[in-house]
């Protein structure tokens, strides 16, 4: 199993700061397995010829898999004691096997709440040419320093 980063404290997160990026390079096997576990039989995800007939260069990364990559980036950043309160994304560009997808985020707001702090993040996934594949926002809850000591 991978090691997760320690959870950052709310006080240590600054508005304007970037969160650690997550780079994913989906393969055709990954896309197939994601379709299998989500019982998604849409042919654009596993049949190259069909995807081409619809005007795509290859089989497509699923909309939900883009979202899963963004969720993974958030969970890696907030560590074991952070929680995702909400997040959303809109799919803006397609991705195919071999694309190098970089998930990134920037803190845009902070708000104290009972026993935890809420942090708002703008999130994005871009490919190797800088084209945006997905864009969205998230709110995560982080522990407040003095409450945990």
């Amino acid at each position, binding site marked *: *199993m991978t090691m997760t980063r320690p959870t950052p404290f709310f006080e240590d997160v600054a508005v304007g700061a970037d969160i650690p990026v997550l780079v994913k390079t989906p393969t055709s096997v990954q896309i197939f397995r994601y379709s299998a576990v989500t019982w998604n*039989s849409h042919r654009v995800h596993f049949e190259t010829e069909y995807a081409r007939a619809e005007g795509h260069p290859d089989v497509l990364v699923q909309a939900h898999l883009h979202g899963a990559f963004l969720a993974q980036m958030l969970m890696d950043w907030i560590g074991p004691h952070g929680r995702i309160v909400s997040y*959303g994304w809109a799919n803006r560009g397609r991705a195919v096997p071999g694309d190098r997808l970089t998930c990134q985020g920037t803190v845009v707001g902070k708000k104290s709440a009972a026993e935890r702090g809420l942090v708002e993040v703008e999130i994005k996934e871009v490919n190797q040419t800088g084209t945006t594949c997905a864009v969205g926002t998230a709110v995560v809850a982080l522990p407040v320093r003095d409450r945990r000591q």
Partner: protein
Amino acid sequence: MPTQTVIVPGEVEDRYIGVIHARDFQRYAVAVGDLNPIYFEDAAARQAGYRGIVAPPNFLTSVRNWGPGPFEGDLQRDGTEVENLPRELYGMRLMGGGHDLRFGRPVYPGDVVRARRRLIDFYTKTARFGELSFAVYEIVYFADNGDELVTCRETIIAAQ
């Protein structure tokens, strides 16, 4: 025969999702390539403040069908299921639009889950390359004791 539900806009459709199994959400995490130990190791999950291993946040909302699903001959030509669509989008080219998820409590193995699904908006827009249709669903997933697990707003985009 698997049943197919035709969605009437605004109508609430109750769906039985079923019992959540660790194997299923662990396969999901493996497919994503997300090996966060809270999905796999009870000790790590407990240390993180959970009761035990939990499902990845977007597991529930990503699975397209929780039943057997339609037989192959009942799928649309592109392989998609009409069950997930308003009638107006049958036969069209489909794309995932956007998703907004709001989380309740975590999802644990053994949870018995139900969902309420409702078409909350349906509209068309003219783009450079033709008319696009947008169907927006709200789906609330909850445990059988009433705990809300996740609420999802999902937009499906369709083109001729």
